[in-house]
């Protein structure tokens, strides 16, 4: 008999369901299949009403984040062989409202992300005729790991503070703010400080560290946030001791 895998999938269809409930599916077991392959098998062959996000199937697009046996994971990065012999329980990412089945509402994250101005703010603007912005390998090393974020939201699902406090700006957005603050071409740190160095910014983080544990790209947002706390504290003292001086 062909080996199979049992999936318990949290379903929520707002037009018929008052609350989410689990539905069980069976899919073939394949040594090189990931959870996303099993979901695609269900969608193609068993139940076309099942909704979930995915795109690249190679841990680059950041679309297919889900809770898999309670752990936030990219479903394209979670091999069935690692769950062999167990039921695989699949839920939408924690700490986000459920739009439908495994699809979450990420509007709050998009607003938080844009609030930290995650783009280069050079001051003064350099005219194109003056050529490119040069950067040494050492200057690049200062922030490169933080550029790897794919906005998959696994860190938000892992962070208890994100679940308990809707206002917390959260790991990925704060890590991206840190990425630009560390960039030698950028001068926008003060423009970001209003959000980043506020209470809902880095100071709501209590350093659980779960964000870094679950990050599939090894961005280490917890490190970015702790470093931002130190930098924000130094800026605060500088502003108190030397009013009017630039940070």
């Amino acid at each position, binding site marked *: 008999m062909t080996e199979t895998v049992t999936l318990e999938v949290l379903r*929520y269809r*707002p*037009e018929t369901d008052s*609350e*989410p409930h689990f539905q069980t599916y069976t899919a073939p077991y394949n040594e090189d299949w990931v959870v996303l392959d099993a979901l695609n098998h269900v969608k193609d062959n068993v139940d076309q009403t099942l909704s979930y996000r995915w795109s690249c199937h190679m841990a680059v697009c950041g679309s297919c984040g889900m809770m898999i046996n*309670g*752990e936030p994971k990219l479903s394209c990065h979670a091999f069935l062989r690692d769950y062999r012999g167990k039921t695989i329980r699949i839920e939408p990412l*924690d*700490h986000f*409202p*459920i*739009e439908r089945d495994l699809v979450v*509402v990420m509007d709050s994250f998009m607003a938080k992300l844009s609030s930290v101005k995650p783009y280069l703010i050079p001051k003064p603007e350099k005219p194109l005729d003056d050529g490119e912005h040069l950067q040494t*390998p*050492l200057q690049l*090393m*200062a922030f490169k790991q933080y550029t790897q974020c794919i906005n998959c939201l696994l860190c938000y699902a892992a962070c*208890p503070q994100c*679940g*308990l406090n809707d206002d917390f700006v959260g790991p990925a957005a704060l890590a991206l703010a840190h990425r630009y603050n560390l960039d030698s071409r950028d001068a926008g740190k003060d423009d970001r400080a209003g959000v980043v160095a506020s209470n809902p910014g880095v100071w709501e983080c*209590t*350093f*659980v*560290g*779960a964000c*870094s*544990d679950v990050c599939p790209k090894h961005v*280490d947002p*917890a*490190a970015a946030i*702790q*470093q931002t*706390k*130190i930098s924000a504290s130094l800026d605060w003292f500088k502003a108190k001791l030397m009013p009017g001086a630039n940070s």
Partner: protein
Amino acid sequence: MSRRPYVRKVERSWWLAHPRYVAYMAREITSLFIGLYCALLVVGLVRLAQGPAAWEGFLAAASSAPGVLLQLVCLAFAAYHSVTWFALTPKAMPLTLRGERVPGGAIVGAHYAVWAAVSLVVLIAAGV
């Protein structure tokens, strides 16, 4: 069709859901015992200011079996807090030396070295 997003509440027992959250809560709770030991030191200072008899009474209480047990428990929690904090220090203070990242182990090791040195000075000053 109108949208009707469903919001799931975070359970009060969220911290029991994964060992990493339990470890985090254990680290947080160490602060209570460190606070307790600080209160003990403040009481000691107050008793010292009240004169030799009060100070001797404080010393006797601190040296009794319950007093020693309390201090051992506080020491255990303080050690757990310090060890877990030292393990996190490379995240908070990434150092670069001659164009290379200083390995995390070296940063953690330096913290243990300073801890040992300070402890030695305190023990010598206390005449142990």
